[in-house]
């Protein structure tokens, strides 16, 4: 065995250098990405952890303060907990609702009918709209007194809430906006997943006497779980970092001091990312903001791992194995 290997390595000597040449050529092709990975991903990620343990205002070098930032964050910054609550509220509602809306739209589109492409376009169109425009449209439509939405609600005898002007309703308003503008992408992914379901399986279930709901519950949903899993993780990561619509919605909603960005009535729209933005780019408290980033990062990693762990139980992979 060993003699075989050594004689083989003798024969392969020039070959080895050819492998090395091959490696070098490949790494030349990969070089933009390798540089980008180091400069714009690896270094900043590590540096975030370092900065989080310092006091750093950019102008003077970072000064080591140990865990001070974290202690202040958890024990002495009521705004931090406000944003944690607001962001959690937003995520807990917008992610499941977003998945449900996207799946519902995909189911509606997954039928053979004339003009279905037109409907698909209509459902997807809001996903193309810049956040500034989304908030502008909805600020007008959600006007508590004379907006389109509350006028419609009053017409059917429902009281119109204060939406963006009310502490209790500003987050539901934001979620409404996100459902309108953010469901398109997930919808298309669900639609692709639905089209992948073999008709033979549905036919077999039908022959076995399964009705429409049973086919949906026991054939369609299990086969869609990988897609649901994917959209769930992306949804959590995105909604934890919600920034733009919250930031803009509050600077135009007619609250006092418009232009400051990102508070809303009684800070009810102050999202985690907006507070981080304030600390970093308005107060240039980079160490403190980095601590916020690190906390968010750790929470997201743990949450993602938890979802991945749970996927063993509820995500169905075809062929029984993991992909």
């Amino acid at each position, binding site marked *: 065995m060993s003699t075989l290997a050594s004689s083989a390595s003798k024969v392969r000597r020039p070959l080895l250098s050819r492998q090395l040449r091959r490696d070098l*050529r490949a790494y030349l092709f990969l070089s933009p990405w390798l540089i980008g990975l180091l400069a714009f991903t690896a270094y900043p990620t590590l540096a975030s952890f370092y900065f989080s343990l310092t006091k750093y205002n950019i102008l003077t070098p970072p000064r080591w303060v140990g865990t001070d930032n974290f202690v202040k964050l958890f024990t002495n910054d009521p705004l931090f907990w406000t944003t944690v609550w607001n962001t959690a509220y937003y995520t807990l509602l917008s992610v499941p609702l977003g998945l449900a809306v996207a799946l519902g739209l995909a189911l509606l589109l997954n039928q053979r009918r004339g003009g*279905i492409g037109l409907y698909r376009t*209509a459902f997807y169109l*809001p996903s193309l709209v*810049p956040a500034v425009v989304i908030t502008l449209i909805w600020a007008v439509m959600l006007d508590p007194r004379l907006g389109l939405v509350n006028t419609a609600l009053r017409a059917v005898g429902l009281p119109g809430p204060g939406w963006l002007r009310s502490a209790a309703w500003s987050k539901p308003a934001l979620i409404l906006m996100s459902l309108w503008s953010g469901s398109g992408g*997930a919808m298309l992914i669900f639609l*692709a997943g639905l089209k992948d379901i073999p008709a033979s399986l549905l036919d077999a279930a039908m022959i076995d006497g399964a009705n429409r709901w049973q086919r949906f519950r026991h054939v369609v949903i299990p086969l869609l779980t990988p897609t649901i899993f*994917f959209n769930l993780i992306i949804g959590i990561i995105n909604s934890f*970092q919600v920034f733009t619509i919250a930031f803009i919605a509050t600077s135009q909603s007619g609250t006092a001091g418009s232009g400051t960005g990102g508070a809303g009535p009684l800070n009810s729209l102050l999202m985690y990312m907006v507070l981080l933005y304030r600390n970093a780019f308005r107060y240039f408290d980079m160490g403190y903001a980095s601590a916020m980033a690190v906390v968010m990062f750790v929470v997201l990693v743990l949450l993602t791992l938890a979802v991945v762990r749970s996927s063993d139980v509820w995500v169905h992979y075809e062929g029984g194995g993991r992909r």
Partner: protein
Amino acid sequence: MQQTLPQPTVATARRNARARRAAQAFLGHALLAIVAALFVIPFIWLVITSLKPTNQIFTDPLIWIPRPILWSNYTSALTSPAFPFLRLLSNTLFYALLSTIGTVMSSAVVAYGFARMDFRGRNVLFGITLATMMLPGIVTLIPTYVLFRWFGWVGSYAPLIVPMFFGSAFNIFLLRQFMLTIPLDLTDAAHVDGAGDFVVLWRIMLPLVKPALLVVGLFQFMAAWNDFQGPLIYLDKASEFPLVLGLYAFQTSRGATVEWNLMMAAALVTTFPIILLFFITQRYFIEGIALTGLKGA
């Protein structure tokens, strides 16, 4: 079902089935139409409001057809010093086009490396590449800013454009998946004829994966067009803003006396090019999202 009908004859059963199908088709269309209306009404309201005189925007009852229809809102908005449209548009095009060129070029080269070249560490590196797609942007934001500030790039588009020339995980992944579907025979034949990897990539691979390149380019172009957070952090002079940031500045510059009709006109002009682009390229775009099971930013 049919068995329970009284005196089922073949003809009546067939008629009933037809009627039921027609009713189902009608209900299906009605449901689709109602849901579609919910998604489209905000657009209609945007258009209507942009054509209204100021005193017809918030009224009871609502006004659906403005009288008169004020097309002049568009000229007022586009010539307003607070919304220097041509300037904003050229800034946006500059950002969107350069970042698109950057990410398409660099991601294609790297994707070719992963798809067609055999080297040690490929699987590990590709795994890392996929993992970075899950990395939340929040964790790189601040040090990246510090880095670009140190380069002296804050206040310019460089922090938004230059990184795009170093590939992006999502685009590399997407292009690699497409390249893997190209038969090896096609590229091997060229290699046998003595063509190097760059020649094979440029002459053979890129023409074959053109639809994928288009998808990657479209995603980036639209992402750059709509990007708010990046320009907000890195740009400070109003003359350098892209359209979305200019629109935001336009809104906030007016304080309490927001002229909603002009805002809406400006908003529509900002959104229209993207929607037009989508309509032209819809097929590629939707296939692109569906094929990867991943959505663009």
